[in-house]
């Protein structure tokens, strides 16, 4: 449950917030990632009123309330301030009408004030709330950034995920999180991974124990969040399995409803995992730029075959003519 208190603690500075009254209601849950300027609802029109949204009182609302007589003011405010209202906010540091303060206090609805302009507050709040409510999951894997590509290394325990990541770090790439990756959908279209705060920058290497990568290699080799661009699964080499030899078919895996390019990387002694991971990352960048090595080669190959065929045909036709 995401409470008003959580929201306040997280964004107090960012949104320049202060609590005016209704501290008792800070436990109230924010259930929808939406805010609402009451506007029309203050005229008494309450059909389809979204009562679960955080209410934001801007210039228009404050001045409209001032124009009303006290009785109507109370009546209209009581109409929109319900048990479900998570919180009320006043923008531009306006002084809220006395009635608003007293109702919020009585009902235990947190009344917050921000010095931001109404529009900025609405935009920022919508953005922050949708971030908070974005679908998220925890994945078992190690997230690294190589050549700017966010790569999640997965595989069974002790297959060598951490060692591979350590190798990448040693070559100047960055660690985001080892073993556990919190993945979140951003803007509904791409994924972003981060590590839990407690184990940030830490890695566990068999035989050594827990190491702090930021201390060992410096701040340059760590990063807190990174988009998740591809997933590589490390697995022990299996002779019965047929591994991708051409790379024409692109595989994807589904994380939170978003397709992420997916590679299976078989391991066996002599295969340099770090180099292979770097190559996958680089190849991914190349594909993003529009160059697909395997496809391009295939086009060239098809061209050559077609040319040979037509040459062969014309040769045969020529020889037929000669015979005739």
């Amino acid at each position, binding site marked *: 449950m995401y409470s008003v208190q959580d929201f306040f603690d997280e964004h107090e500075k960012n949104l320049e917030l202060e609590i005016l009254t209704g501290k008792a209601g800070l436990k109230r849950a924010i259930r929808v990632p939406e805010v609402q300027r009451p506007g029309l609802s203050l005229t008494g029109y309450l059909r389809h009123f979204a009562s679960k949204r955080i209410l934001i009182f801007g210039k228009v609302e404050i001045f409209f309330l001032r124009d009303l007589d006290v009785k109507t003011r109370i009546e209209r405010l009581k109409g929109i301030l319900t048990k479900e209202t998570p919180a009320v906010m006043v923008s531009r540091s306006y002084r809220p009408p006395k009635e608003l303060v007293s109702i919020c206090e009585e009902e235990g609805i947190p009344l917050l004030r921000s010095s931001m302009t109404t529009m900025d507050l609405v935009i920022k709040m919508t953005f922050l709330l949708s971030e908070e409510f974005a679908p998220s999951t*925890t994945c078992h894997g190690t997230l690294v950034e190589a050549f700017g590509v966010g790569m999640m290394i997965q595989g069974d*325990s002790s297959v060598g995920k951490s060692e591979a990541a350590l190798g990448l770090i040693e070559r100047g790439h960055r660690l985001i999180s*080892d073993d*556990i990756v919190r993945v979140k959908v951003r803007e509904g279209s791409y994924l972003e991974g981060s590590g839990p705060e*407690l184990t940030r920058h830490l890695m*566990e290497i068999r035989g050594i124990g827990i190491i702090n990568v930021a201390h060992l290699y410096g701040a340059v080799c760590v990063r807190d969040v990174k988009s998740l661009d591809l997933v590589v699964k490390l697995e022990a080499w299996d002779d019965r399995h047929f591994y991708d030899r051409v790379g024409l078919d692109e595989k994807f895996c589904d994380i939170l409803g978003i397709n992420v390019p997916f590679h299976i990387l078989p391991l066996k002694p002599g295969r340099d995992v770090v180099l292979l991971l770097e190559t996958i990352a680089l190849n991914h960048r190349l594909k993003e730029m529009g160059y697909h090595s395997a496809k391009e080669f295939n086009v060239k190959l098809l061209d050559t075959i077609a040319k040979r065929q037509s040459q062969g045909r014309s040769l045969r036709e020529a020889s037929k003519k000669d015979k005739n």
Partner: protein
Amino acid sequence: MKLVKKIKIRNELGLHARPAALIVKILQPTKSMVNFTYRNETINARSIMSVLMLAAQRNTLITVTVEGDDAEYTLSLLEKAFENKFGEDCCER
């Protein structure tokens, strides 16, 4: 086979580094998939960093999910470890 059980953490300090290492050690020879769920977070119990990340304290419940052929045996090993307070707190009482 899939088994789900809530196990209470009994040792004074909660799931700190040593108990986490012990859990991972106990699980090493077993085959089943073992997940811990704590505060809406589900993690792979074979990964020490994940177990540490939970930072689970004393007298809280961890939902243990074991799935696989040796689920019953794996769960009994885990239960025993939790019950014995991971060999800690021997001077208590």
